[in-house]
């Protein structure tokens, strides 16, 4: 097992007990990796499952050529584990579909399996409310490559999303990506060697905590982008994460927004309001531990709000940072400041409060229209001002928490 920080190992027996307690009508549909036409049989099982059923994936390596999909509500897809010897859905020979597994129904529980080497995204859920991703591994096994799929775990347009104890490696965009959704918890997970480790985009009400984001290009991103059906990202808390050594050179295909993330970024907030960054442990992020910026590309969306607003950074632990800043002129600024820029970097637009006892470098760009070439980098004191009221803890429906207990 490559998992770290799984706090629910001891719960396996409880899960067995819970299964036994299912109502009589619910059934377990077991599919074996060794079945001839396993791809077709597994897909059939996912189609024929009734609400309440469990589709049980046998242990072994499943060689799959076509993406799978689930459109039945309240179904559990359970494997025999996400590590070696578990249920490994191997898409190395994939010939069709934009992802390995697509879920489009509500109340689905995905647990204890791995999805490897998909051509596009790993596991996507769209319009799938109350989805639970638990003890999964999504990995591109050759490590960072531009030819890897974009997102590892990819819920979008959903309410109530729980991502718990997953491991994602090698995504050419974001390992864990939550888009255009609300009421979100991402916890106890590991994102490594992705372009973005964890990304919350065009979403609101999210808690991202107790994760490890390491060796990505950027560890944790909170973004809002224009011209999308849901925008105005806000109310995001990023806390008690370990965000270190995000040093992988950016390998995203150009054109995508994450292709602009500087290597060595810890947490990056772009164009959001009410974001709290606290109680995290940062270390060895060569550009900055925390970066707060506006959206600087041209856009034609009059409803779009491109500035970061009401950002609070407090009580974080800062190790080494800013020693290899990957933005134009960064090396010169670092040299002028004694070899490293401060661990918190702000482009100067919008507003933020930084209560950590570390330096802040502002590029003093007063708005998103001013080109970066006019940056006037200088230390800034963002400790003044009154922080907005603390955001509440995200509470998910009890039925979701019960699934992972």
């Amino acid at each position, binding site marked *: 097992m490559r998992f770290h920080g799984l706090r629910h190992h001891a719960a396996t027996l409880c899960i067995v007990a819970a299964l036994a307690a299912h109502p009589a009508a619910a059934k377990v549909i077991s599919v074996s990796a060794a079945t001839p036409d396993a*791809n*077709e*049989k*597994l*897909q*059939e099982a*996912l*189609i*024929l499952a009734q609400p309440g059923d469990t589709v049980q994936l046998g242990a072994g390596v499943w060689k799959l*050529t*076509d*993406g799978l*999909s*689930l*459109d039945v509500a309240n179904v559990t897809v359970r494997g025999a584990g996400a590590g070696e010897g578990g249920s490994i859905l191997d898409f190395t020979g*994939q*010939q*069709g*579909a*934009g992802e390995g597994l*697509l879920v*489009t129904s509500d109340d689905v529980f995905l647990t204890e399996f791995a999805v490897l080497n*998909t*051509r*596009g*995204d790993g596991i996507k859920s*769209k*319009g799938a409310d109350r989805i639970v991703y638990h003890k999964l591994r999504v990995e591109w096994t050759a490590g960072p490559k*531009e*030819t890897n*799929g*974009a*997102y590892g775990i*990819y819920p*979008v*347009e959903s309410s109530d999303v729980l991502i718990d104890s997953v491991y994602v490696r090698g995504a*050419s*965009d974001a390992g864990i*990506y939550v*888009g*255009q959704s609300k009421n979100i918890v991402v916890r106890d997970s590991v994102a490594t060697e992705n372009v973005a480790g964890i990304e919350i985009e065009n979403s609101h009400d999210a808690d991202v905590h107790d994760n490890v984001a390491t060796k990505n290009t950027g560890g944790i991103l909170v973004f809002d*982008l224009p*011209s*999308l*059906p*849901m925008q105005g990202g806000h109310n995001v808390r990023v806390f008690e994460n370990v965000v270190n050594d995000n040093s992988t050179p950016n390998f995203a*295909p*150009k*054109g*995508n*927004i994450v292709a602009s993330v500087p290597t060595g970024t810890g947490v990056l907030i772009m164009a959001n309001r009410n974001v709290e960054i606290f109680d995290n442990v940062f270390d060895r992020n060569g550009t900055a531990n925390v970066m707060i910026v506006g959206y600087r*590309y*041209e*856009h*034609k*969306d009059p409803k779009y709000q491109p500035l970061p607003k009401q950002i609070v950074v407090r009580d974080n632990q800062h190790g080494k940072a800013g020693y290899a800043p990957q933005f134009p002129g960064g090396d010169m600024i670092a040299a002028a400041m004694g070899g490293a820029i401060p661990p918190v970097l702000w482009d100067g637009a919008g507003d933020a409060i930084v209560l950590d006892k570390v330096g802040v470098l502002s590029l003093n760009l007063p708005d998103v229209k001013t080109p970066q070439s006019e940056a006037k980098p200088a230390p800034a004191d963002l400790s003044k001002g009154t922080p907005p009221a603390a955001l509440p803890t995200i509470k998910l429906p009890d039925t979701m928490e019960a699934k992972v207990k």
Partner: protein
Amino acid sequence: MKRVLAAITAALLCSSGGAAFAPPGVDQAVVESDAMPPKLSAFGLFRGNDPAQPAAGLSYTLRAPLFSDYTEKHRFISIPAGKKAKVADDGVIEFPVGTVLVKSFGWSDVNNGRPVETRLLIRRASGWTALPYIWDADGKDATLALGGRRVPVSFKSPDGETHSIRYAVPNRNQCKECHSLNGEIVPIGPKARNFLPDPAASDKLRGLYFENPAALKPVMPQWDDPGSGSVTDRARAYLDVNCAHCHNPAGSASNSGLFLRWTDDPAGVNFGVGKRPTAAGRGSGGMDFAIAPGDPDHSFLIYRLESTDPGIAMPEVGRSTVHREGAALLRQWIAEMPKASH
């Protein structure tokens, strides 16, 4: 009551001038049940179960069809006796419960022209259901393939090139991925703007199938007939049918913000013009915009249409070859756009 209905049915049959209408062959009990019969013959949709001989119905074509690996598609509609479809004000055709849209896919140079698969879209009381059937090797019946299948085929495209592909018969969920509006299954092609009833069908016959057949006025041009519309309008028609079933605010690609319906503003950012990639991954091809006006080589919409790589290709399902002729039309459309001042 039943007797009255039977009398009406008989009258309708007479008035259809001998054309097959609501024939005894179609088993409406099966059609309108929740059944998923393992064999296509259970529906009685074909005479002698010969896919070339629909037992009933009105055949139709589309001004712009969905590209499916150069398959030739034979389509017909079966509507139960005494019921009619209605063209709504917005051009959507409302079909009564018991309707079956039947579509057979094949190539003239594969299996002596016999179809490889037949897909049914059935209007049941609970909504539309999609069922894919693959014809058996002996050609006598077709078997339900809920989980989809890849079928190796070799065929020539119109430009004379031979393609050997593993043709993907979609699974039932993939049917819905395209045929989806707000999470419910809906037909794609049969909209008034795109729908061409069999020209041999008499007005009387059309009147048997439609309450308001005069409303069947296809406003979209024939995508591949330059005489039928401008390059822009033919490109819009092509995008409407090949992309907009997902790329609309209630479709499978709603989150992309790229909306390509006939009714969308073709100059707008949400039509792709100057639109940056969203969740595109490798689909961006290193380019900044879905459509870069005047520059098809830097428009990743073209890049994705011309790819067969599952992480890049659009549409995501239903295509293992590149539709060169469709891509050429879209290239011309983008090339003729005035360059923007980005």
